[in-house]
Structures are given as structure tokens and as C-alpha cells.
């Protein structure tokens, strides 16, 4: 009787140790978890969208980064669909994929923005400042030629 009792105890303790070693049993993601991850992915996309608009306003070519944004957006759409079909594990996985695609997005958009701003400044210097100075130089040269010609004409040299 005593041996049987200690055997049962031994089995139970072993089972407990195995459970502790293996870790917690996997459980399906909850609706709340999925909603949180999807909401976070949405916020990430909106932040990236703002960065994209800033880069575009600075005159950057945003075609490539918009492609990345669309890729992330596609994962998010699929995540939302999975959420509506109560497939919360898939929803979380897809929403995280959406976020992973955008990890370096904002810094890339900012680099594009800075490059475009520099390019715009350079263009402004070349196109506006140099062109304006050139126009004044042409007018001044025209006036100089005029006065020179007029002077020569009066002196009877022309």
C-alpha cells in the first residue's frame, strides 16, 4: 500500500517536472491580442504614410518606398480578414509581417527627404540664383554695349 502510494507520488512529481521543463502548453491567440497587434500595425502604416508624404513634399521619388508600403498594407488587409474569420493566430502573424516589412521604412523615407531637400536647394541655386544673376549680367552687358556704341557714334567713329 505504501509502495503503491509512493509510486503514484513519483509519477506525479515526474509529470510535473516534465511539464515545467517543456514549458507552458501553446494556446491559441486571443481576439484581444490579435486586435492589439493589428491596431499597432495600422499605426505603423500611418506613421510610414506620414513619412512618405513628407518625402514626397520635399520632391523625392517615392515610387520604391510606396511599393514597400503597399506590400505591408497587403499583409495588414489579410490580417484583418483573418481576424474577421476568427483566425487570430494567422491575423497576428500577418500583422507582424506587415510591421516587419516597415522596420527601416521611416529612416529610408527620411533619407529620401533629406536628399530631395538638398537636391531642391541645389536646383534653386542653379536655376533661380544663377539664372537671375545671369539675366542681370546680360542686361548690364547690353547697357554697356549701348553706352559704348553711343559714345563711339557721338565721336563719329561708327
Amino acid at each position, binding site marked *: 500500500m505504501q509502495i503503491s502510494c509512493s509510486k503514484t507520488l513519483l509519477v506525479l512529481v515526474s509529470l510535473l517536472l516534465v511539464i515545467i521543463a517543456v514549458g507552458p502548453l501553446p494556446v491559441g491567440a486571443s481576439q484581444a491580442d490579435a486586435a492589439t497587434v493589428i491596431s499597432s500595425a495600422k499605426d505603423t502604416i500611418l506613421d510610414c*504614410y506620414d513619412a512618405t*508624404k513628407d518625402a*514626397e513634399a520635399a520632391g523625392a521619388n517615392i*515610387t520604391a518606398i510606396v511599393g514597400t508600403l503597399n506590400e505591408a*498594407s497587403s499583409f495588414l488587409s489579410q490580417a*484583418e480578414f483573418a481576424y474577421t474569420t476568427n483566425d487570430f493566430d494567422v491575423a497576428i502573424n500577418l500583422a507582424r509581417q506587415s510591421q516587419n516589412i516597415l522596420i527601416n521604412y521611416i529612416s529610408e523615407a527620411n533619407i529620401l527627404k533629406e536628399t530631395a531637400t538638398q537636391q531642391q536647394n541645389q536646383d534653386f541655386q542653379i536655376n*533661380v540664383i544663377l*539664372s537671375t544673376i545671369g539675366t542681370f549680367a546680360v*542686361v548690364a552687358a547690353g547697357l554697356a554695349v549701348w553706352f559704348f556704341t553711343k559714345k563711339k557714334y557721338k565721336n563719329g567713329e561708327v
Partner: protein
Amino acid sequence: MNLQRYKVVLLGVTAILALLVGSPALQRFLVLPRTDFFTEMWLLDEEHRAENYPFNVSINERYTGFLGIGNNLGDCAYYLIQLKFRNQTQPAADSLNHTSSSLSSLYNFTVFVADKEVWEMPFSFAFDYAHDNYNQSLLEVRFDELKFNDLGLNIKGYTSVWDPQARVFYGNLFFELWIYNDNVGVFQYHDRYVGLEFNMTSRS
């Protein structure tokens, strides 16, 4: 040549040269601002033309097409496309009143389009449905599932009754375009929709 003629020639040459040299600066200030800001939306058939749209639909047969958006709004836009399905009695989007259909969306997807750029997506769809027969006549189509780009969308509960005038079991699959409003932080109906109209035949 007298002095007056010199003056005219010199003025002309100076003016032309000044305009040439000053044109890079002038073009910055003389370009007329854009006044037309709009979004284009289109639907094309499987051959990328606006001709052979599917009409007589068979059960579970796969059809394809292209959906496109062109952004001319002046900056990058964030669009939401809602896929909806209706029969002849259910509300459609209304171009005159600028309202979307009150039907719930079967599938939503978002897309970003940069200014002066276009986005286009191939899509496929197939309907799973059954005809109800009463006294050897077909009276109603009961829908079960819409496969859109291989996603199974549940359209159980959707029906279409026989339209004796048009002689069709009418079905209308349409895409509504919504746009993200930065100021209020929500998507708003953008007054654009495109769709396909079908006769749900009993062929399979």
C-alpha cells in the same frame, strides 16, 4: 546704320538673351498651378481591355480582370477599396447623391498611390451558388461563397430572384473607393465605384 537702328537691334538681342538666361528662374514662377485634383478608377477585362466583361456567370467558374487607380490629387493618397456584392433590390452606391452602398463590405484592402502614378491589380473571382427549383421553374439563386483572389468570402444569405423583365438572376460585384482623411483620421467615401453585373446561370 544710324543710332536708332543700333538701339533696336541691341534691345532685341539683349531681351532675347535675357529671356534665355532667365528662363530657368522664370519657369519656376510662370508655371500655372494645378487646378484639377482627382482620382481615376477603372475595371478592365482579362485581356486588359474594356470590352469582354463576364456577364453570364457559371457556378464555380473562375473569371479574371484588372482593377486600377490613378492618383492626381497632388500628393500620395491612402485608399481603401471595399468589395461588395448585391442583387437588384439591394442598395448600390449612388453617383448622384455621392453616397456609398450601405451594404457591408465582403473584403477590404488598402493601397497607397503616389501623385501622378497609377496602381493596378489583377483579380479573380468565382461564385458558388445554387438555384432553387419550384415546379420545374427556377425562382431563386442562393449564394454560398465568393472566391476572390482565392480567398473564400462568405456570402451565405445572399439571394437573387428571377427578374422576368431582364430575364436574369441579377448579381452585381462592385468595388467602392474610400480615401484616408488625414485631418480626421478616418477613411471617407471617395465617390468612386466600379463594378460588374452578372446573370447567374445554372451552368456549372
